[in-house]
């Protein structure tokens, strides 16, 4: 159990007080986890600051203002309405279920946040770890608080600040340096986060009625702003020895960007304290991930990289002109909206009287559109064990990259599960991003045992998640089929083979299409047996290069039935 600094609610209350102190500076907060504590905090916030609810289905007109259709019709003249963004000025907008927020609304809000005067509270109810509110928003808001595990909810009040932000002196150089070094140690690249940290430190001094910040302010600011965004664990040793660049340099790394020295000059004391403070505040789940070296692969700031997922939920988009046929549904309100402005013109043209009802024409018809879904997610389960020799691994990598190259055309996505040693992990959640995929693949190490059952189970879980979102999944398993690690991680060929068969049958039972590609130099019966258990196809490629492999995968797709 990781030591918990205090109830998360205390931290959240502190963040909320800062937010109320200067809404325009801090822009807002993301509150994770539906809990009584969060409700209490929102209630307390509402007392300090006018909050306007932002429903998930809000449209552009309501958000930005525009013509109010209903009143305009009633009045017979255009009636304007102010948008929610405008109305919420001086207070804050509050959005529930922010993890499901539409990208277009997020875009509007991000722009409003940049323009200033708008503040936002996001309530994040995401159940799965990869679900998150739009990164374009969480990135801009100063605070992220997770209240899932808070056990308190009573007596939440936001004490009034003792001073004002403007009365606090700017931070001195030593402090700025320490904050910057801390951000670096935690792998927080975004400058917005860094800037928020500095302002939070000043804000904390203002809350206490001081005009200069002290070390406790700095530590709290780091805890509140930087810790939730950490993408790596700070080095254990004193920061005199700065960590090497993480093993994943950006793909197009030009040499001049890599200069991350200059750290030696900083005083180790202050940033040491700050890093310690941050470490204590990193959420337990995140800490675990970081310790396993998982999170740095993901993101530059909290919750990024998942945008595509949030965007593939089949949400309704705006209506477009068109005829309601071939599966398209009529968007009644939008059609009316399109027809209404023309009534005066048409009545004059046709000589009808005003009482003859609305004159609709074909071009008025609008159809509803839904967000396009990626048709298919191909999940590669790659055997990176010692027996699937290193050269074959390189081919597998190449094939995945080639598949991705085609993702533009087919609008399909690719996910990657790798298994070796005693574990299987999802290296790449479903994505179309070539950049990410290439980087992940380059990092994929080889060697160790063959936990085939684990790999199959991991792949099945990904496939199930994909299917749950209304898309179809196909598995491509690249292995030699020679399992020697059982599902519980213990070595032993017979148990491992039996487990693999069970896992394969579970996949077959779910009706997931599968293809087994035997990548061993001398294909044995194991691969074919696996394919049989999966109810899938089998392909032996003893001497294939990446291109041949890709051609083969293309040839067998779509794999029989359309899921």
């Amino acid at each position, binding site marked *: 159990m990781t030591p918990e600094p205090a109830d998360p609610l205390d931290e959240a209350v502190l963040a909320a007080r800062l937010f109320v102190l200067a809404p325009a500076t801090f822009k807002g907060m993301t509150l994770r986890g539906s809990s009584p504590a969060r409700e209490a905090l929102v209630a307390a916030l509402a007392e300090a600051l006018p909050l306007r609810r932002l429903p998930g289905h809000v449209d552009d007109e309501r958000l930005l203002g525009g013509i109010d259709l209903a009143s305009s019709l009633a009045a017979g003249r255009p009636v304007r309405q102010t948008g929610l963004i405008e109305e919420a000025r001086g207070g804050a907008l509050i959005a529930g279920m922010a993890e499901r927020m539409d990208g277009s609304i997020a875009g509007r809000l991000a722009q409003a946040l940049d323009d200033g005067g708008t503040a936002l509270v996001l309530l994040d109810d995401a159940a799965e770890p990869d679900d998150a509110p739009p990164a374009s928003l969480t990135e801009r808001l100063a605070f992220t608080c997770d209240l899932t595990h808070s056990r308190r909810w009573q007596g939440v009040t936001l004490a009034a600040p003792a001073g004002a932000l403007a009365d606090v002196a700017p931070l001195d150089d030593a402090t700025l340096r320490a904050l910057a070094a801390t951000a670096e140690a935690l792998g927080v690249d975004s400058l917005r986060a860094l800037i928020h940290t500095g*302002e939070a430190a000043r804000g904390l001094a203002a809350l206490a009625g001081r005009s200069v910040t002290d070390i406790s302010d700095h530590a709290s600011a780091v805890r509140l702003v930087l810790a939730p965004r950490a993408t790596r664990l700070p080095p254990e040793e004193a920061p005199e020895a700065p960590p090497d660049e993480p093993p994943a340099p950006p*793909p197009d790394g030009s040499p001049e960007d890599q200069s991350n020295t200059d750290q030696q000059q*900083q005083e180790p004391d202050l940033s040491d304290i700050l890093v310690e403070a941050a470490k204590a505040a990193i959420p337990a789940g995140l800490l675990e991930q970081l310790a396993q070296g998982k999170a740095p692969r993901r993101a530059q700031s909290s919750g990024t*990289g998942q945008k595509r997922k949030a965007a593939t939920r089949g949400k309704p988009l*705006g209506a477009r002109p068109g005829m309601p046929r071939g599966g398209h549904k009529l968007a009644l309100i939008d059609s009316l909206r399109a027809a*209404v402005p023309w009534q005066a013109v048409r009545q004059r043209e046709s000589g009808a009287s005003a009482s003859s009802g609305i004159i609709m024409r074909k071009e008025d018809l609008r159809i509803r559109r839904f967000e396009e879904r990626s048709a298919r997610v191909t999940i590669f389960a790659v055997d990176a064990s010692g027996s699937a020799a290193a050269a074959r691994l390189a081919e597998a990598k190449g094939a995945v990259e080639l598949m991705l190259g085609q993702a533009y055309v087919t609008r399909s996505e690719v996910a990657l599960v790798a298994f070796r040693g005693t574990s299987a992990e999802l290296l790449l959640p479903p994505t179309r991003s*070539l*950049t*990410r995929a290439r980087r992940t693949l380059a990092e994929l190490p080889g060697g160790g045992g063959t936990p085939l059952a684990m790999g199959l189970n991991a792949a099945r879980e990904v496939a199930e998640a994909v299917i749950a979102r209304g898309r179809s999944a196909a598995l491509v398993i690249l292995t030699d089929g020679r399992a020697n690690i059982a599902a519980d991680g213990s070595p032993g060929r017979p148990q491992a083979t039996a487990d693999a068969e069970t896992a394969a049958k579970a996949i077959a039972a779910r009706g997931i299409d599968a293809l087994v590609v035997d990548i061993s130099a001398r294909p044995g019966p194991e691969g074919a047996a696996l394919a049989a258990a999966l109810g899938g196809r089998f392909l032996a490629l003893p001497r294939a290069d990446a291109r041949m492999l890709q051609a083969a995968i293309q040839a067998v797709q779509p794999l029989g039935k359309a899921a």
Partner: protein
Amino acid sequence: MARFPFSAIVGQDEMKQALLIAAVDPSIGGVMVFGDRGTGKSTAARALAGLLPPIMAADGCPYGASKEDQARYPEVCGRGKMVKRAVPFVDMPLGATEDRVIGSLDLERALRSGEKAFEPGLLAKAHRGFLYIDEINLLEDHLVDLLLDVAASGENVVEREGLSVRHPAKFVLIGSGNPEEGELRPQLLDRFGLSVEVRTPKDIEVRIEIMRLVAANEADPEAFAKRWAEADETILKQVAKGKARLPKLTPGEDVLRDAAELCLAVGADGLRGELTLMRAARAMAALEGAKKVTRKHLIAIAPSALRHRLRRDVLDETGSTTRITRAIAELFG
């Protein structure tokens, strides 16, 4: 919040250079900015807007028409007399609808007087200026196609809802996006004249400087703007001078040959690479106030002009930038 002064942006030299070059010669065709969040992409693009020399435009014309526009589009641009106005900068939100972008029936007039009138959209607003799209890689495909079409033709043709309107829409497209969150289609990428990659500054001193400047701006935006007004003015003059100098510069035979050789060496697809490279080198020379376009200008701008045009070899791990610098080193020593 007041716009952050352009000259106060620390580092990000390649992005600033590309934006200024696009300002000097809008025909280069837009700038694509790749980079992580929180690296100052939006800040720089928005700061640019406040920096540019004002233009002469027809008074009261929703398109900000120039004299030439008035001659070409007499029915939409009117005959208003010329007044000074700021260069338009349109910030296009991700969720913009087609109606908002290309323009639509003017609801107000239709309702009030039963009149069929066109209400210009964002494309009209951006005429002779800049159209900025944050997270362009997440933009809907049909909008992207539409934007490309208009950007290439310099004219917005509206044939819908019983409207038939044609109006000028020449603008510099500035897109930004994080490639980790979805790629841009290659066809779209190729249409951008320049592309730059922005990374978060890793140098602690630079980061501290940025924090200091942002804090100063937050504390007193007016004083901050004043402090940087002079530096901004210098850049503005530089851009204005560059614009005036541009028509006088013609790249010599040697520079053209260099451009062709470089494009061949890196395997940039199509002629567009060479043309952009040549134009960009010319704009670079104009911006610097140079008497003639030289190889130095070409080399300085080559990564921005070609980076996004290299044929993608998914099996080649070498980054585009590296491939270009390598080719430059091999060709020009």
